[in-house]
Protein backbone atom coordinates (compact mmCIF):
# COMPACT_ATOMS: atom_id res chain seq x y z
CA UNK A 1 0.00 0.00 0.00
CA UNK A 2 1.42 3.35 -0.98
CA UNK A 3 0.51 6.90 -0.10
CA UNK A 4 -1.52 8.26 2.76
CA UNK A 5 -4.90 6.73 3.44
CA UNK A 6 -7.96 8.85 2.86
CA UNK A 7 -9.83 10.80 5.49
CA UNK A 8 -13.13 9.94 3.85
CA UNK A 9 -14.15 6.49 2.70
CA UNK A 10 -17.09 5.84 0.41
CA UNK A 11 -18.71 2.42 0.36
CA UNK A 12 -19.69 1.76 -3.25
CA UNK A 13 -22.96 -0.12 -3.32
CA UNK A 14 -23.86 0.92 -6.86
CA UNK A 15 -22.43 3.32 -9.43
CA UNK A 16 -25.29 5.82 -8.94
CA UNK A 17 -25.03 6.07 -5.16
CA UNK A 18 -21.24 5.99 -5.27
CA UNK A 19 -21.00 9.05 -7.54
CA UNK A 20 -23.38 11.01 -5.29
CA UNK A 21 -21.40 10.14 -2.17
CA UNK A 22 -18.15 11.00 -3.94
CA UNK A 23 -19.49 14.50 -4.62
CA UNK A 24 -19.74 15.11 -0.87
CA UNK A 25 -16.63 13.09 0.01
CA UNK A 26 -14.50 15.19 -2.35
CA UNK A 27 -15.84 18.40 -0.83
CA UNK A 28 -15.02 17.21 2.72
CA UNK A 29 -11.58 15.93 1.73
CA UNK A 30 -10.72 19.22 0.01
CA UNK A 31 -11.48 21.20 3.18
CA UNK A 32 -9.14 18.84 5.05
CA UNK A 33 -6.46 18.67 2.37
CA UNK A 34 -7.00 14.93 2.45
CA UNK A 35 -7.79 12.04 0.17
CA UNK A 36 -10.89 10.04 -0.70
CA UNK A 37 -10.99 6.25 -0.65
CA UNK A 38 -13.64 4.05 -2.21
CA UNK A 39 -14.36 0.48 -1.11
CA UNK A 40 -15.83 -1.79 -3.75
CA UNK A 41 -16.54 -5.45 -3.08
CA UNK A 42 -17.53 -8.28 -5.35
CA UNK A 43 -16.47 -11.43 -7.06
CA UNK A 44 -14.68 -9.22 -9.56
CA UNK A 45 -14.28 -5.46 -9.86
CA UNK A 46 -17.09 -3.72 -11.73
CA UNK A 47 -16.01 -2.00 -14.94
CA UNK A 48 -17.34 1.40 -13.83
CA UNK A 49 -14.92 1.44 -10.90
CA UNK A 50 -12.10 2.71 -13.07
CA UNK A 51 -13.90 5.94 -13.93
CA UNK A 52 -14.19 6.92 -10.25
CA UNK A 53 -11.03 9.03 -10.41
CA UNK A 54 -12.98 11.43 -12.60
CA UNK A 55 -15.63 11.76 -9.88
CA UNK A 56 -13.36 12.62 -6.97
CA UNK A 57 -11.83 9.36 -5.74
CA UNK A 58 -8.10 9.15 -5.06
CA UNK A 59 -7.87 5.50 -4.17
CA UNK A 60 -9.97 2.43 -4.85
CA UNK A 61 -9.82 -0.51 -2.49
CA UNK A 62 -11.12 -3.57 -4.25
CA UNK A 63 -11.91 -6.84 -2.58
CA UNK A 64 -12.39 -9.60 -5.11
CA UNK A 65 -13.74 -12.65 -3.38
CA UNK A 66 -16.38 -15.19 -4.40
CA UNK A 67 -17.86 -14.91 -0.89
CA UNK A 68 -18.68 -11.25 -1.68
CA UNK A 69 -20.33 -12.04 -5.01
CA UNK A 70 -23.78 -11.13 -3.67
CA UNK A 71 -24.44 -8.69 -0.86
CA UNK A 72 -24.56 -10.33 2.56
CA UNK A 73 -24.20 -8.38 5.81
CA UNK A 74 -21.88 -10.84 7.59
CA UNK A 75 -19.02 -11.09 5.07
CA UNK A 76 -19.40 -7.46 3.94
CA UNK A 77 -19.16 -6.25 7.55
CA UNK A 78 -16.05 -8.36 8.16
CA UNK A 79 -14.35 -6.95 5.07
CA UNK A 80 -15.31 -3.34 5.66
CA UNK A 81 -14.43 -3.29 9.35
CA UNK A 82 -10.95 -4.62 8.58
CA UNK A 83 -10.50 -2.03 5.83
CA UNK A 84 -11.66 0.83 8.08
CA UNK A 85 -9.32 -0.29 10.85
CA UNK A 86 -6.48 -0.29 8.34
CA UNK A 87 -7.23 3.07 6.74
CA UNK A 88 -8.66 4.90 9.79
CA UNK A 89 -10.74 7.61 8.09
CA UNK A 90 -12.73 10.24 9.97
CA UNK A 91 -15.85 9.56 7.92
CA UNK A 92 -17.28 6.48 6.22
CA UNK A 93 -20.16 7.30 3.86
CA UNK A 94 -22.89 4.84 2.94
CA UNK A 95 -26.03 5.32 0.88
CA UNK A 96 -29.15 5.04 3.05
CA UNK A 97 -30.54 2.19 0.99
CA UNK A 98 -31.89 -1.02 2.46
CA UNK A 99 -28.45 -2.62 2.14
CA UNK A 100 -26.66 0.39 3.58
CA UNK A 101 -29.06 0.56 6.50
CA UNK A 102 -28.57 -3.08 7.50
CA UNK A 103 -24.80 -2.97 7.18
CA UNK A 104 -23.60 0.46 8.35
CA UNK A 105 -24.96 0.21 11.94
CA UNK A 106 -23.37 -3.21 12.34
CA UNK A 107 -20.03 -1.87 11.07
CA UNK A 108 -20.33 1.05 13.50
CA UNK A 109 -21.22 -1.27 16.37
CA UNK A 110 -18.15 -3.42 15.78
CA UNK A 111 -15.88 -0.38 15.56
CA UNK A 112 -17.51 1.26 18.59
CA UNK A 113 -18.29 4.18 16.26
CA UNK A 114 -21.14 6.62 16.06
CA UNK A 115 -23.59 6.17 13.22
CA UNK A 116 -26.04 8.77 11.93
CA UNK A 117 -28.96 7.71 9.72
CA UNK A 118 -30.79 9.82 7.11
CA UNK A 119 -27.92 12.32 6.72
CA UNK A 120 -28.41 15.32 4.47
CA UNK A 121 -25.16 17.14 5.22
CA UNK A 122 -21.77 16.56 6.84
CA UNK A 123 -19.04 18.81 8.15
CA UNK A 124 -15.62 17.82 9.45
CA UNK A 125 -13.57 20.22 11.57
CA UNK A 126 -10.17 20.54 9.87
CA UNK A 127 -8.37 20.90 13.23
CA UNK A 128 -10.08 18.38 15.47
CA UNK A 129 -11.54 16.03 12.82
CA UNK A 130 -14.80 16.21 14.78
CA UNK A 131 -17.67 15.19 12.56
CA UNK A 132 -21.03 16.96 12.61
CA UNK A 133 -23.85 15.48 10.60
CA UNK A 134 -27.25 16.90 9.78
CA UNK A 135 -29.99 14.33 9.50
CA UNK A 136 -33.71 14.19 8.94
CA UNK A 137 -35.74 13.31 12.01
CA UNK A 138 -39.39 12.42 12.66
CA UNK A 139 -40.11 11.36 9.10
CA UNK A 140 -38.63 14.54 7.72
CA UNK A 141 -40.59 16.94 9.96
CA UNK A 142 -37.26 18.23 11.20
CA UNK A 143 -33.52 18.24 10.75
CA UNK A 144 -31.18 17.61 13.66
CA UNK A 145 -27.47 18.25 14.01
CA UNK A 146 -25.44 15.47 15.59
CA UNK A 147 -21.91 15.44 16.92
CA UNK A 148 -20.29 12.06 16.40
CA UNK A 149 -18.29 11.25 19.51
CA UNK A 150 -16.38 8.31 18.08
CA UNK A 151 -14.80 8.23 14.62
CA UNK A 152 -14.90 6.90 12.01
CA UNK A 153 -18.28 8.57 11.82
CA UNK A 154 -20.44 6.07 9.95
CA UNK A 155 -22.98 8.08 7.98
CA UNK A 156 -25.99 6.89 6.01
CA UNK A 157 -26.69 9.57 3.42
CA UNK A 158 -30.15 9.98 1.96
CA UNK A 159 -30.02 9.07 -1.74
CA UNK A 160 -30.54 11.93 -4.21
CA UNK A 161 -29.19 14.45 -1.66
CA UNK A 162 -25.61 15.07 -2.75
CA UNK A 163 -24.75 16.14 -6.26
CA UNK A 164 -22.21 14.23 -8.25
CA UNK A 165 -19.31 16.40 -9.43
CA UNK A 166 -16.99 15.57 -12.27
CA UNK A 167 -13.44 16.42 -11.23
CA UNK A 168 -11.45 16.12 -14.40
CA UNK A 169 -8.85 13.44 -14.85
CA UNK A 170 -7.36 12.37 -11.55
CA UNK A 171 -5.03 9.51 -10.93
CA UNK A 172 -6.88 6.62 -9.32
CA UNK A 173 -4.70 4.30 -7.31
CA UNK A 174 -6.18 0.81 -7.22
CA UNK A 175 -5.34 -1.32 -4.20
CA UNK A 176 -6.35 -4.96 -4.00
CA UNK A 177 -7.29 -5.65 -0.39
CA UNK A 178 -7.61 -9.12 1.09
CA UNK A 179 -9.54 -9.17 4.34
CA UNK A 180 -10.29 -12.12 6.58
CA UNK A 181 -13.91 -13.12 6.16
CA UNK A 182 -15.28 -15.30 8.90
CA UNK A 183 -19.01 -14.59 9.28
CA UNK A 184 -20.75 -16.77 6.74
CA UNK A 185 -23.68 -17.87 8.86
CA UNK A 186 -26.34 -16.52 6.54
CA UNK A 187 -26.65 -18.69 3.42
CA UNK A 188 -28.34 -17.25 0.36
CA UNK A 189 -30.63 -19.88 -1.16
CA UNK A 190 -32.20 -17.91 -3.99
CA UNK A 191 -32.03 -14.36 -5.37
CA UNK A 192 -34.81 -12.88 -7.48
CA UNK A 193 -34.03 -9.56 -9.14
CA UNK A 194 -36.97 -7.22 -9.64
CA UNK A 195 -38.09 -6.43 -13.11
CA UNK A 196 -37.15 -2.82 -13.79
CA UNK A 197 -38.47 -0.61 -16.52
CA UNK A 198 -35.00 0.64 -17.28
CA UNK A 199 -35.97 4.20 -16.36
CA UNK A 200 -35.05 5.45 -12.93
CA UNK A 201 -37.89 7.08 -11.04
CA UNK A 202 -35.34 9.50 -9.65
CA UNK A 203 -34.71 10.83 -13.16
CA UNK A 204 -38.39 11.34 -14.05
CA UNK A 205 -39.45 14.95 -14.81
CA UNK A 206 -43.10 14.14 -14.18
CA UNK A 207 -44.27 11.67 -11.53
CA UNK A 208 -47.88 10.57 -11.14
CA UNK A 209 -48.13 9.38 -7.55
CA UNK A 210 -50.93 6.96 -6.71
CA UNK A 211 -52.49 6.65 -3.26
CA UNK A 212 -55.22 4.48 -1.84
CA UNK A 213 -57.88 6.83 -3.17
CA UNK A 214 -57.22 5.49 -6.67
CA UNK A 215 -59.75 2.81 -7.68
CA UNK A 216 -58.32 -0.62 -8.06
CA UNK A 217 -60.33 -1.59 -11.11
CA UNK A 218 -59.55 1.17 -13.60
CA UNK A 219 -57.40 3.71 -11.75
CA UNK A 220 -54.09 2.39 -12.98
CA UNK A 221 -54.99 2.63 -16.67
CA UNK A 222 -56.32 6.15 -16.20
CA UNK A 223 -53.17 7.29 -14.37
CA UNK A 224 -50.93 5.64 -16.95
CA UNK A 225 -52.60 7.66 -19.72
CA UNK A 226 -51.91 10.90 -17.84
CA UNK A 227 -48.29 9.92 -17.18
CA UNK A 228 -47.72 8.91 -20.81
CA UNK A 229 -49.22 12.16 -22.06
CA UNK A 230 -46.65 14.16 -20.06
CA UNK A 231 -43.76 11.76 -20.57
CA UNK A 232 -43.85 10.87 -16.89
CA UNK A 233 -43.64 7.80 -14.72
CA UNK A 234 -46.01 6.22 -12.24
CA UNK A 235 -45.19 5.74 -8.57
CA UNK A 236 -47.19 4.96 -5.45
CA UNK A 237 -47.47 5.11 -1.68
CA UNK A 238 -46.35 2.30 0.60
CA UNK A 239 -49.86 0.91 1.27
CA UNK A 240 -50.61 0.79 -2.46
CA UNK A 241 -47.34 -1.05 -3.08
CA UNK A 242 -47.95 -3.62 -0.37
CA UNK A 243 -51.66 -4.17 -0.93
CA UNK A 244 -52.07 -3.99 -4.70
CA UNK A 245 -48.81 -5.23 -6.13
CA UNK A 246 -48.87 -2.59 -8.90
CA UNK A 247 -45.29 -1.56 -8.16
CA UNK A 248 -42.68 -3.23 -5.93
CA UNK A 249 -41.35 0.10 -4.70
CA UNK A 250 -42.91 3.16 -3.19
CA UNK A 251 -42.15 6.81 -2.48
CA UNK A 252 -41.46 7.97 1.05
CA UNK A 253 -39.28 7.77 4.08
CA UNK A 254 -38.72 4.05 3.72
CA UNK A 255 -38.80 4.09 -0.08
CA UNK A 256 -37.62 6.32 -2.88
CA UNK A 257 -37.42 10.09 -2.99
CA UNK A 258 -38.06 11.92 -6.22
CA UNK A 259 -37.50 15.48 -7.34
CA UNK A 260 -39.37 15.96 -10.63
CA UNK A 261 -40.51 19.25 -12.10
CA UNK A 262 -44.11 18.15 -11.59
CA UNK A 263 -45.63 15.60 -9.24
CA UNK A 264 -49.33 14.79 -9.56
CA UNK A 265 -50.57 13.05 -6.42
CA UNK A 266 -53.81 11.15 -6.96
CA UNK A 267 -55.80 9.96 -3.94
CA UNK A 268 -52.79 10.37 -1.66
CA UNK A 269 -53.71 11.19 1.95
CA UNK A 270 -50.58 13.15 2.74
CA UNK A 271 -48.98 11.18 5.60
CA UNK A 272 -45.63 12.76 6.43
CA UNK A 273 -43.85 9.44 5.84
CA UNK A 274 -45.00 9.63 2.23
CA UNK A 275 -44.66 13.39 1.69
CA UNK A 276 -40.93 13.17 2.26
CA UNK A 277 -40.70 11.10 -0.91
CA UNK A 278 -42.23 13.82 -3.10
CA UNK A 279 -41.21 16.93 -1.18
CA UNK A 280 -38.31 17.60 -3.56
CA UNK A 281 -40.75 18.15 -6.45
CA UNK A 282 -40.75 21.62 -7.95
CA UNK A 283 -44.54 21.65 -8.27
CA UNK A 284 -47.00 19.38 -6.52
CA UNK A 285 -50.55 18.97 -7.77
CA UNK A 286 -52.86 16.96 -5.54
CA UNK A 287 -56.25 15.55 -6.43
CA UNK A 288 -58.38 14.22 -3.61
CA UNK A 289 -62.10 13.96 -2.89
CA UNK A 290 -61.80 15.44 0.61
CA UNK A 291 -61.26 19.12 1.25
CA UNK A 292 -59.73 18.22 4.64
CA UNK A 293 -57.06 16.01 3.15
CA UNK A 294 -53.58 16.76 4.53
CA UNK A 295 -52.11 16.54 1.05
CA UNK A 296 -53.74 19.88 0.14
CA UNK A 297 -51.51 21.75 2.60
CA UNK A 298 -48.47 20.10 1.02
CA UNK A 299 -49.33 21.02 -2.56
CA UNK A 300 -49.03 24.00 -4.83
CA UNK A 301 -52.31 23.25 -6.55
CA UNK A 302 -54.94 21.12 -4.93
CA UNK A 303 -58.07 19.90 -6.63
CA UNK A 304 -61.01 18.68 -4.56
CA UNK A 305 -62.87 16.36 -6.90
CA UNK A 306 -63.58 12.75 -7.71
CA UNK A 307 -60.26 11.93 -9.28
CA UNK A 308 -61.85 9.31 -11.54
CA UNK A 309 -63.84 12.10 -13.18
CA UNK A 310 -61.14 14.72 -12.94
CA UNK A 311 -58.17 12.86 -14.43
CA UNK A 312 -59.94 11.97 -17.73
CA UNK A 313 -61.07 15.62 -17.95
CA UNK A 314 -57.49 16.77 -17.35
CA UNK A 315 -56.19 14.41 -20.04
CA UNK A 316 -58.78 15.82 -22.43
CA UNK A 317 -57.81 19.46 -21.76
CA UNK A 318 -54.08 18.75 -22.14
CA UNK A 319 -54.72 16.92 -25.41
CA UNK A 320 -57.09 19.59 -26.73
CA UNK A 321 -54.61 22.38 -26.06
CA UNK A 322 -51.65 20.35 -27.31
CA UNK A 323 -49.68 20.94 -24.12
CA UNK A 324 -46.56 19.26 -22.87
CA UNK A 325 -44.10 19.72 -20.06
CA UNK A 326 -42.18 22.95 -20.57
Amino acid sequence: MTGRSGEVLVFAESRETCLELLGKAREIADTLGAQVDVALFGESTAAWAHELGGWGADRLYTVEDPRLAGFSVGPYTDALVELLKRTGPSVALFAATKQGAEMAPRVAARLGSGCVSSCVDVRVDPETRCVEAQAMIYSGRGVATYLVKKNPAVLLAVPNTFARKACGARGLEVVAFQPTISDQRVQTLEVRPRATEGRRLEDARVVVDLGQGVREADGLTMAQELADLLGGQLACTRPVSSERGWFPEWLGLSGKRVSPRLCIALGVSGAIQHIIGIRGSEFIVAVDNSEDSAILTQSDFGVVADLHEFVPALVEVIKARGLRLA
Partner: protein
Amino acid sequence: MKIAACVKYSLDVAEIRVDVPTRKLLLTGVPRKLGNVDKNVLETAVMLKEAHGGSVHALGFGPPEAKDALLREALAMGADEAVVVVDPFDGGLDPSATAAVLASALARMGGFDIVVCGEASDDDSTYQVGPRLAESLGWPQVAYVRDIAVEGGCVVAERDVGAYSERVSVPLPALITVTEETNTPRRPTLMDVLKAKKKPLALWELEADLGITPASLQEAATVKQLGSEAVIVSRRQTVLWNKPASDLARELVELLVQEGVLEGHDP
Protein backbone atom coordinates in the same frame (compact mmCIF):
# COMPACT_ATOMS: atom_id res chain seq x y z
CA MET B 1 -38.32 -21.98 21.30
CA LYS B 2 -37.68 -18.84 23.34
CA ILE B 3 -38.61 -15.77 21.31
CA ALA B 4 -37.94 -12.12 22.11
CA ALA B 5 -40.04 -9.35 20.58
CA CYS B 6 -38.31 -5.97 20.89
CA VAL B 7 -40.82 -3.14 20.60
CA LYS B 8 -40.92 0.62 20.99
CA TYR B 9 -43.42 2.93 22.60
CA SER B 10 -43.07 5.60 19.94
CA LEU B 11 -44.09 9.17 19.39
CA ASP B 12 -46.99 9.51 17.00
CA VAL B 13 -45.01 11.43 14.38
CA ALA B 14 -48.17 12.57 12.58
CA GLU B 15 -49.04 14.61 15.69
CA ILE B 16 -45.79 16.58 15.81
CA ARG B 17 -46.55 20.26 15.19
CA VAL B 18 -44.24 23.06 14.22
CA ASP B 19 -43.92 26.59 15.55
CA VAL B 20 -43.22 28.33 12.26
CA PRO B 21 -41.65 31.63 13.51
CA THR B 22 -39.09 29.82 15.72
CA ARG B 23 -38.80 26.70 13.53
CA LYS B 24 -39.25 24.64 16.69
CA LEU B 25 -40.63 21.12 16.67
CA LEU B 26 -43.35 21.00 19.33
CA LEU B 27 -42.78 17.65 21.01
CA THR B 28 -44.46 18.29 24.35
CA GLY B 29 -47.77 16.51 24.60
CA VAL B 30 -47.31 14.51 21.40
CA PRO B 31 -49.16 11.23 22.05
CA ARG B 32 -47.27 7.97 22.14
CA LYS B 33 -48.27 4.48 21.20
CA LEU B 34 -46.78 1.16 20.40
CA GLY B 35 -45.42 1.64 16.87
CA ASN B 36 -47.20 0.18 13.85
CA VAL B 37 -44.29 -2.04 12.87
CA ASP B 38 -44.03 -3.22 16.48
CA LYS B 39 -47.36 -4.96 16.07
CA ASN B 40 -45.85 -6.85 13.13
CA VAL B 41 -42.96 -7.76 15.44
CA LEU B 42 -45.39 -9.18 17.99
CA GLU B 43 -47.43 -10.98 15.35
CA THR B 44 -44.27 -12.62 13.98
CA ALA B 45 -43.18 -13.71 17.46
CA VAL B 46 -46.60 -15.09 18.41
CA MET B 47 -46.91 -16.93 15.07
CA LEU B 48 -43.53 -18.57 15.66
CA LYS B 49 -44.67 -19.66 19.11
CA GLU B 50 -47.91 -21.06 17.71
CA ALA B 51 -46.01 -23.01 15.06
CA HIS B 52 -43.09 -24.26 17.15
CA GLY B 53 -44.10 -23.94 20.80
CA GLY B 54 -42.13 -22.04 23.39
CA SER B 55 -42.63 -18.58 24.80
CA VAL B 56 -42.70 -14.95 23.68
CA HIS B 57 -41.06 -12.22 25.75
CA ALA B 58 -41.82 -8.63 24.80
CA LEU B 59 -39.13 -6.10 25.67
CA GLY B 60 -39.02 -2.33 25.39
CA PHE B 61 -36.76 0.51 26.50
CA GLY B 62 -38.88 3.54 27.21
CA PRO B 63 -40.98 5.50 29.67
CA PRO B 64 -42.89 3.74 32.48
CA GLU B 65 -46.19 4.48 30.69
CA ALA B 66 -45.12 2.00 28.02
CA LYS B 67 -46.22 -0.67 30.48
CA ASP B 68 -49.88 -0.09 29.71
CA ALA B 69 -49.34 -0.34 25.94
CA LEU B 70 -47.39 -3.56 26.41
CA LEU B 71 -50.25 -4.98 28.46
CA ARG B 72 -52.96 -4.04 25.99
CA GLU B 73 -50.98 -4.88 22.88
CA ALA B 74 -48.09 -7.27 23.54
CA LEU B 75 -49.52 -9.46 26.27
CA ALA B 76 -53.01 -9.36 24.80
CA MET B 77 -51.67 -10.42 21.39
CA GLY B 78 -50.09 -13.48 22.96
CA ALA B 79 -46.75 -12.61 24.55
CA ASP B 80 -46.18 -14.53 27.80
CA GLU B 81 -44.19 -11.87 29.59
CA ALA B 82 -43.39 -8.20 29.06
CA VAL B 83 -40.56 -6.09 30.42
CA VAL B 84 -40.05 -2.34 30.11
CA VAL B 85 -36.58 -1.11 30.97
CA VAL B 86 -37.16 2.46 32.11
CA ASP B 87 -35.21 4.98 30.04
CA PRO B 88 -34.02 7.79 32.31
CA PHE B 89 -33.15 9.85 29.21
CA ASP B 90 -36.58 9.38 27.60
CA GLY B 91 -35.20 8.52 24.16
CA GLY B 92 -32.48 11.15 24.36
CA LEU B 93 -29.56 8.78 23.80
CA ASP B 94 -28.40 7.25 20.53
CA PRO B 95 -29.25 3.83 19.05
CA SER B 96 -26.01 2.33 20.41
CA ALA B 97 -27.31 2.97 23.94
CA THR B 98 -30.69 1.39 23.15
CA ALA B 99 -28.98 -1.67 21.67
CA ALA B 100 -26.70 -1.99 24.72
CA VAL B 101 -29.67 -1.87 27.11
CA LEU B 102 -31.71 -4.38 25.10
CA ALA B 103 -28.70 -6.73 24.88
CA SER B 104 -28.23 -6.54 28.63
CA ALA B 105 -31.92 -7.20 29.32
CA LEU B 106 -31.98 -10.13 26.90
CA ALA B 107 -28.91 -11.57 28.61
CA ARG B 108 -30.62 -11.31 31.97
CA MET B 109 -33.77 -13.02 30.67
CA GLY B 110 -31.48 -15.57 29.02
CA GLY B 111 -31.66 -18.48 26.60
CA PHE B 112 -33.24 -16.90 23.51
CA ASP B 113 -33.32 -18.68 20.16
CA ILE B 114 -34.60 -15.78 18.13
CA VAL B 115 -34.98 -12.03 18.57
CA VAL B 116 -37.50 -10.15 16.44
CA CYS B 117 -37.21 -6.37 15.92
CA GLY B 118 -38.93 -3.90 13.62
CA GLU B 119 -36.86 -2.75 10.62
CA ALA B 120 -36.94 0.75 12.13
CA SER B 121 -38.95 2.50 14.82
CA ASP B 122 -41.99 4.58 13.89
CA ASP B 123 -40.54 7.77 15.33
CA ASP B 124 -36.73 7.78 15.12
CA SER B 125 -36.50 5.48 12.08
CA THR B 126 -32.73 5.06 12.29
CA TYR B 127 -32.75 1.38 11.22
CA GLN B 128 -29.85 0.97 13.65
CA VAL B 129 -31.12 -0.87 16.71
CA GLY B 130 -31.66 -4.27 15.04
CA PRO B 131 -28.21 -4.55 13.42
CA ARG B 132 -26.48 -3.06 16.48
CA LEU B 133 -28.28 -5.47 18.79
CA ALA B 134 -27.36 -8.44 16.58
CA GLU B 135 -23.74 -7.32 16.73
CA SER B 136 -23.89 -6.96 20.54
CA LEU B 137 -25.30 -10.46 20.83
CA GLY B 138 -22.73 -11.78 18.35
CA TRP B 139 -25.60 -13.20 16.29
CA PRO B 140 -26.29 -13.17 12.57
CA GLN B 141 -29.10 -10.90 11.37
CA VAL B 142 -31.66 -11.13 8.62
CA ALA B 143 -33.34 -7.80 7.90
CA TYR B 144 -36.58 -6.89 6.09
CA VAL B 145 -38.09 -10.36 6.50
CA ARG B 146 -41.38 -10.89 4.66
CA ASP B 147 -41.90 -14.54 5.45
CA ILE B 148 -40.28 -16.85 7.94
CA ALA B 149 -40.14 -20.56 8.76
CA VAL B 150 -38.03 -22.47 11.24
CA GLU B 151 -36.70 -25.79 9.97
CA GLY B 152 -34.13 -28.02 11.62
CA GLY B 153 -32.59 -25.36 13.86
CA CYS B 154 -32.42 -22.83 11.02
CA VAL B 155 -34.50 -19.83 10.10
CA VAL B 156 -35.45 -19.81 6.45
CA ALA B 157 -36.62 -16.34 5.52
CA GLU B 158 -37.80 -14.48 2.48
CA ARG B 159 -36.56 -10.91 2.56
CA ASP B 160 -37.06 -7.81 0.46
CA VAL B 161 -33.97 -5.75 -0.30
CA GLY B 162 -35.58 -3.27 -2.69
CA ALA B 163 -33.78 -4.00 -5.93
CA TYR B 164 -34.28 -7.73 -5.39
CA SER B 165 -35.76 -10.23 -3.00
CA GLU B 166 -34.04 -13.32 -1.69
CA ARG B 167 -34.47 -16.44 0.39
CA VAL B 168 -31.84 -17.05 3.03
CA SER B 169 -31.15 -19.61 5.71
CA VAL B 170 -29.41 -18.95 9.00
CA PRO B 171 -28.78 -21.18 12.03
CA LEU B 172 -30.37 -20.17 15.33
CA PRO B 173 -29.85 -18.15 17.40
CA ALA B 174 -30.48 -15.24 15.06
CA LEU B 175 -32.02 -11.78 14.98
CA ILE B 176 -34.56 -10.84 12.35
CA THR B 177 -36.17 -7.52 11.51
CA VAL B 178 -39.64 -7.35 10.03
CA THR B 179 -41.64 -4.70 8.15
CA GLU B 180 -45.23 -3.51 7.99
CA GLU B 181 -45.70 -5.79 4.99
CA THR B 182 -44.61 -8.94 6.83
CA ASN B 183 -48.04 -9.87 8.18
CA THR B 184 -51.37 -8.54 9.40
CA PRO B 185 -51.25 -8.16 13.17
CA ARG B 186 -54.13 -9.72 15.06
CA ARG B 187 -56.45 -7.41 17.00
CA PRO B 188 -56.75 -8.43 20.63
CA THR B 189 -60.28 -8.74 22.01
CA LEU B 190 -61.41 -7.41 25.34
CA MET B 191 -61.17 -10.99 26.63
CA ASP B 192 -57.52 -11.15 25.48
CA VAL B 193 -56.81 -7.96 27.42
CA LEU B 194 -58.48 -9.34 30.56
CA LYS B 195 -56.43 -12.54 30.33
CA ALA B 196 -53.29 -10.50 29.75
CA LYS B 197 -53.72 -8.86 33.13
CA LYS B 198 -52.70 -12.15 34.77
CA LYS B 199 -49.41 -12.32 32.84
CA PRO B 200 -46.10 -11.06 34.27
CA LEU B 201 -45.39 -7.43 33.36
CA ALA B 202 -42.34 -5.80 34.90
CA LEU B 203 -40.64 -2.43 34.99
CA TRP B 204 -36.88 -2.77 35.26
CA GLU B 205 -34.52 -0.04 36.36
CA LEU B 206 -31.22 0.35 34.52
CA GLU B 207 -29.02 0.30 37.58
CA ALA B 208 -31.00 -1.92 39.97
CA ASP B 209 -31.93 -4.60 37.45
CA LEU B 210 -29.23 -4.47 34.80
CA GLY B 211 -26.28 -2.98 36.68
CA ILE B 212 -25.92 -0.17 34.13
CA THR B 213 -25.53 3.30 35.61
CA PRO B 214 -27.28 6.05 33.63
CA ALA B 215 -24.01 8.02 33.66
CA SER B 216 -22.07 5.16 32.06
CA LEU B 217 -24.77 4.72 29.42
CA GLN B 218 -24.66 8.41 28.60
CA GLU B 219 -20.87 8.29 28.47
CA ALA B 220 -20.92 5.33 26.08
CA ALA B 221 -23.34 6.96 23.64
CA THR B 222 -21.48 7.47 20.36
CA VAL B 223 -23.55 10.33 18.99
CA LYS B 224 -24.90 13.46 20.65
CA GLN B 225 -27.70 15.62 19.31
CA LEU B 226 -26.69 19.28 19.32
CA GLY B 227 -29.97 20.74 18.19
CA SER B 228 -32.86 20.44 15.81
CA GLU B 229 -35.23 22.54 13.78
CA ALA B 230 -38.40 22.03 11.84
CA VAL B 231 -38.48 21.77 8.09
CA ILE B 232 -40.89 24.44 6.91
CA VAL B 233 -42.71 23.56 3.73
CA SER B 234 -43.99 26.53 1.80
CA ARG B 235 -46.22 25.42 -1.02
CA ARG B 236 -48.77 27.71 -2.62
CA GLN B 237 -51.71 25.67 -1.30
CA THR B 238 -54.07 26.99 -3.95
CA VAL B 239 -57.19 24.82 -3.84
CA LEU B 240 -59.67 24.42 -6.69
CA TRP B 241 -63.05 22.92 -5.86
CA ASN B 242 -66.81 22.99 -6.04
CA LYS B 243 -67.07 22.94 -9.86
CA PRO B 244 -67.57 20.32 -12.52
CA ALA B 245 -64.46 18.24 -13.22
CA SER B 246 -64.00 19.69 -16.70
CA ASP B 247 -63.97 23.27 -15.32
CA LEU B 248 -61.50 22.29 -12.61
CA ALA B 249 -59.29 20.62 -15.22
CA ARG B 250 -59.27 23.79 -17.37
CA GLU B 251 -58.43 25.94 -14.32
CA LEU B 252 -55.59 23.68 -13.24
CA VAL B 253 -54.11 23.57 -16.73
CA GLU B 254 -54.29 27.37 -16.95
CA LEU B 255 -52.38 27.67 -13.65
CA LEU B 256 -49.72 25.22 -14.82
CA VAL B 257 -49.33 27.14 -18.08
CA GLN B 258 -49.02 30.44 -16.18
CA GLU B 259 -46.32 28.93 -13.98
CA GLY B 260 -44.47 27.71 -17.05
CA VAL B 261 -44.84 24.05 -16.13
CA LEU B 262 -46.84 23.21 -19.25
CA GLU B 263 -46.45 24.79 -22.66
CA GLY B 264 -48.03 24.46 -26.08
CA HIS B 265 -46.12 22.87 -28.87
CA ASP B 266 -46.60 22.79 -32.60
CA PRO B 267 -47.80 19.42 -33.75
